[in-house]
């Protein structure tokens, strides 16, 4: 069998780079004097990435332990990003998308004179900003809220997790967005915060939520027979609020412990903003948005 290679395409109108290989779809942008070299370096980094990373896949799918047995830089990043979640169940797979984005970005910027660059791996984004540079992200999953980033802040990664996407979630949040020092950190945090967003035990509306064992949907899932959310029906405002409260508690704990700016948690049309304490200029909300609540 001939080795498969990433597909390379250039997307109009501004010639962003699209790299696609198996489950990985990267959209890459580089601006600045050496942008051409940067793109070539990204393509080279991607060429053998998957092949090399999958050698460690079986161990990456196991519940994380303190010791770090991995060799590939992406696997090492995944491991580091997933440490520090106590006794809760987590495998390094929770940070795979973010870690790949971080890795390709590092490979891309090495030795190059660039003003801005970003690697977007299906919504998990790693970016770099030269001094004085700014970037704005528009969050379509959060009612088009805008995140303003500046080279003066330490934040260089963002990730989204939720029950509807390609990855499974143990929680009922439609989306959790985390801004962190890098994409892998944000990826693991978003996954863990999302899994904490659920109705309290024995809640009367619990039957509006459907779940299935992860194995039944994907026999290779690292979540094993844990129940993942398959459908969330109509919920009362009170139920949504309680779920958001639980998510907020989890988010506060994560934010105080790790290099994370803050998180946005959305259940149906309701968004809770947690953290961003020293950086209130980061978020700009759309005026006619639905219920926003900001944690005290």
């Amino acid at each position, binding site marked *: *069998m*001939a*080795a*498969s*290679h990433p*597909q*390379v*395409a*250039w*997307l*109009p*109108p501004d*010639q*962003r780079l*699209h790299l696609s*290989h*198996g*489950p990985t*779809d990267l*959209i890459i942008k580089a601006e600045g004097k050496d942008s051409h070299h940067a793109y070539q370096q990204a393509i080279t980094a991607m060429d053998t990435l*998957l*092949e090399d990373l*999958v050698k460690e*896949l079986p161990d990456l799918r196991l519940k994380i332990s303190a010791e770090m047995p991995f060799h590939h830089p992406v696997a090492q990043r995944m491991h580091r990003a997933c440490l520090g979640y106590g006794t809760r169940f987590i495998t390094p797979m929770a940070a795979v998308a973010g870690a790949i984005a971080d890795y390709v970005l590092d490979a891309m910027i090495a030795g190059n004179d660039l003003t801005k660059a970003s690697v*977007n791996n*299906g919504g998990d984004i790693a970016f770099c900003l030269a001094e004085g540079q700014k970037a704005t992200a*528009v*969050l*379509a999953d959060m009612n*088009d809220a805008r995140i303003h980033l500046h080279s003066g802040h330490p934040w260089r990664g963002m990730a989204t997790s939720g029950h509807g996407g*390609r990855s499974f979630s143990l929680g009922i949040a439609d989306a959790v967005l985390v801004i962190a020092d890098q994409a892998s950190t944000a990826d693991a945090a978003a996954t863990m915060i999302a899994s904490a967003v659920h109705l309290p035990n024995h809640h009367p509306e619990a039957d509006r939520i459907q779940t299935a064992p992860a194995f039944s*949907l*994907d*026999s*290779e899932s690292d979540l094993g027979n844990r129940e993942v959310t398959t459908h969330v029906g109509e919920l009362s405002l009170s139920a949504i609020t309680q779920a958001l409260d639980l998510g907020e508690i989890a988010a506060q704990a994560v934010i105080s412990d790790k290099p994370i700016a803050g998180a946005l948690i959305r259940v149906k049309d309701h968004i809770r903003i947690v953290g961003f304490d020293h950086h209130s200029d980061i978020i700009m909300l759309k005026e006619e948005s639905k219920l926003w609540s900001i944690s005290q």
Partner: protein
Amino acid sequence: MKKNDEKIRCDACPVMCYIAEGQSGACDRYANHDGQIIRLDPLMILDRRIKAGDAIKPFLGADWDGSIGHDHEVFVTAIGSGTTYPDYKPAPFIVGRHMDDADFVTVVSEAIFSYCGVKIKIDTDRHLGHEGAIVRANGEAVGLVITSEYGSQMLSLGGVDHLTGGSKAEGRTTCDTLMKLCNKEAVELSIDDGSSVVVQAGQPPIVDGKKEYRMRVGCGSATIGMFASQWVGLIDEVVVVDDHITGVVSEHQAGKVLDWPDTGITIKGRRSTPGRYFQVAKPGLGWGGTDLEDPLKILGDWRPAKGAKPGLTILMVSTTGEHSAYFVLDEDLTPQPQEMPAALKASVDLIAENCEPALCTVMFMGGAGGSLRSGVTKNPIKLTESVQSRHTRVTCGGVDAYVWPGGGITVMVDVLKMPDQSFGYVPTPALVAPLEFTVRKEDYIALGGHETAIRSIKDILTTGGEYSKKSIAKPPANSDHNA
């Protein structure tokens, strides 16, 4: 192939997932179906030997029965072919085939279109919206109402501004809307200060919740104008009921020209010009787009001084011929229903026959950009020139595309003719559509084509592509397809 509980290893990429029956791999592009790894969007090959209606023949390289017939019966489309067209690597399939004693080369690729859209023609006289009004899907602006055509309202959706220039939500909604329309699915659109309309290629439009069946030949007045001469001598009075304008032949200009005698009829409605009345009833599901179940409701008293007399015959008919009734005035000048004479029935059928079915037409329109062309040839401008001079033929999913005159390669194609699910998308957002260029081999070489990458159809069917191991054969949608 018997059902198999074992997991199967997929080798399409290094992850090499073990996939259980009925599940897909990590990429969601390959799945285990009945014990075989299949690509969820297989390479589509049009095979004229399969008569329309026959079962689709899926075939993997090893299972292919070896018969290919003549090359001109099989056409490799770009659907499911994948994209690799950076400036150093040729397009996924460059197929060489014999046809009419000349070698032809078809270059196959999926093209990513950021600059693209659809033109929608909706055959209806109903006013959907003003020219220039914004068209929305799920509240997001996706296009506008353009100048109308004869019997049709026109919408133009997409374009780079809605796809990438507005908010993320607008871009994703626009991309999703275009993809659904191009894949022949129904989409609900709403027009600012206008109506809502459900559009689906090849189907009648559903306007404000009501399905349109026929394009009216015209309003009541136009119908009278068209058919008055056929009613002379057959009937004393004709009323054509319509939600817009209801026509009365004895008062109408068309009747005057034929010396139609007065009948003393009175209509309950707002008179426009003679024989033409607005608002005889409210809009609805009854006669002629009104809410009328009983057409007599719109008639007032008959005036003997103006020509009304017992025995006067009256035809009431709607503008699509779907509803009709025949009445005769009795001694008290009250219309009494009677069975319609055969000759009159024929004229009612004629109205219906002249009404075409109301339909939506969706034309995909897009341009083939620079990098795509360089996947075909080392000198992209030569491909453009070859297309413009018609030496190279352009098809989308095997369907001939109309190439616009002028610069570049801008194509337009009727999505109804294309195979199902030909269109996809990437997260940019941008539409992915199949595009094939067919040209004589010597012309292909002359325009700088990648000669060493040419493969025969037999080779592709047996070996597959780099990314497409599996293919599906279907008959072409249009019977006069000449691949």
